[in-house]
């Protein structure tokens, strides 16, 4: 079974996100109300799965029919930023990989209902790991751009820099990594994402901390 994956660049993904954002005012506010976008605008179900994180290491997934996102209930209850990011990540698959989902669904539908699960297992196991990683990477980039919009990131970063300057710290004596960590933490609260996501967004946009 051959399925060709689009080699989307970071710029391509950004274009896609910004096109979606330009048509939805809800996505133009920060922190981006991702749950509202999913439940109210896309009309997808968010279905909590208790225990799935412990048993299967799964944070979440988009269903093959693209009508629901199953999410670890533990994430929903305790790890809010990761919960938000996982939802945005699954929306990345929804927006970028719809043809892949339809392709797999079509292939599975061709089999007898008694063979669905065996065929599904075989598809999942035969999925090329490099292609799989590419798709996951694209969804990761999509989520980061969706939850941390460019303009707001630049504005918030400038504000964080101003706060540091106003603190009258002697920059020659302060460890730069500590400052970077402080800035990332400040921004992660603003966007309600993890510090890692902030760090990667700043890196991708080639923004400067100092």
């Amino acid at each position, binding site marked *: 079974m051959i399925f060709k994956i689009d080699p989307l660049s970071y710029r391509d993904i950004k274009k896609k996100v910004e096109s979606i954002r330009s048509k939805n005012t809800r996505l133009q506010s920060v922190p981006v109300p991702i*749950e509202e976008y999913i439940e109210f605008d896309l009309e997808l179900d968010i279905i909590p*799965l208790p225990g799935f994180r412990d*048993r*299967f290491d799964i944070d979440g*997934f988009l269903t*093959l029919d693209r009508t629901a996102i199953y999410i670890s209930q533990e994430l929903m209850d305790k790890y809010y930023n990761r919960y938000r990011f996982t939802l945005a990540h699954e929306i990345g698959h929804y927006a970028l990989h719809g043809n892949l989902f339809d392709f797999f669904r079509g292939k599975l539908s061709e089999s007898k*209902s008694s063979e669905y699960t065996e065929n599904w*297992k075989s598809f999942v196991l035969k*999925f090329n790991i490099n292609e799989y990683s590419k798709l996951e990477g694209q969804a990761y980039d999509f989520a980061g751009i969706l939850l941390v919009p460019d303009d707001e990131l630049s504005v918030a970063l400038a504000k964080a820099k101003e706060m540091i300057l106003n603190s009258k710290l002697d920059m020659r004596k302060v460890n730069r990594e500590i400052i970077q960590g402080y800035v990332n933490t400040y921004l992660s609260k603003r966007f309600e994402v993890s510090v890692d996501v902030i760090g990667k967004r700043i890196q991708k946009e080639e923004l400067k901390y100092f």
Partner: protein
Amino acid sequence: MKTIAFGEMFKELRIRNNYTLRGFCQALGKDPGNISKLERGLLPPPQDQQQLESYAAMFKLKPGTEEYERFFILAAIQAGRIPSKLLSDKQLLSKLPILFRTITGQRIDPEKLDIFIEQLRNS
């Protein structure tokens, strides 16, 4: 005329009142897993009148209105039904994943796929 399921009405009212599943459950101290099951018809409507009243209040249903009456009537009619707890093969097909977001960023352990399917069927 098709009778609407209580869970469907519940979800419609929640969305109409701008509550996300998580937000609604936080406001009432409810378990989101159970409310999701209630909405999907995997749990029967509650029979406790106080609980139903608290939901009706959240949904701004006014006593005496047709919608208020319908909410309570549907709950009463459908409370005794034993919901079908297992997804059929066809339903399961639609709910299966292709790509998983895992903690480690890796694919799910192949040895766990059978258990995963069974648990998904029950969820």
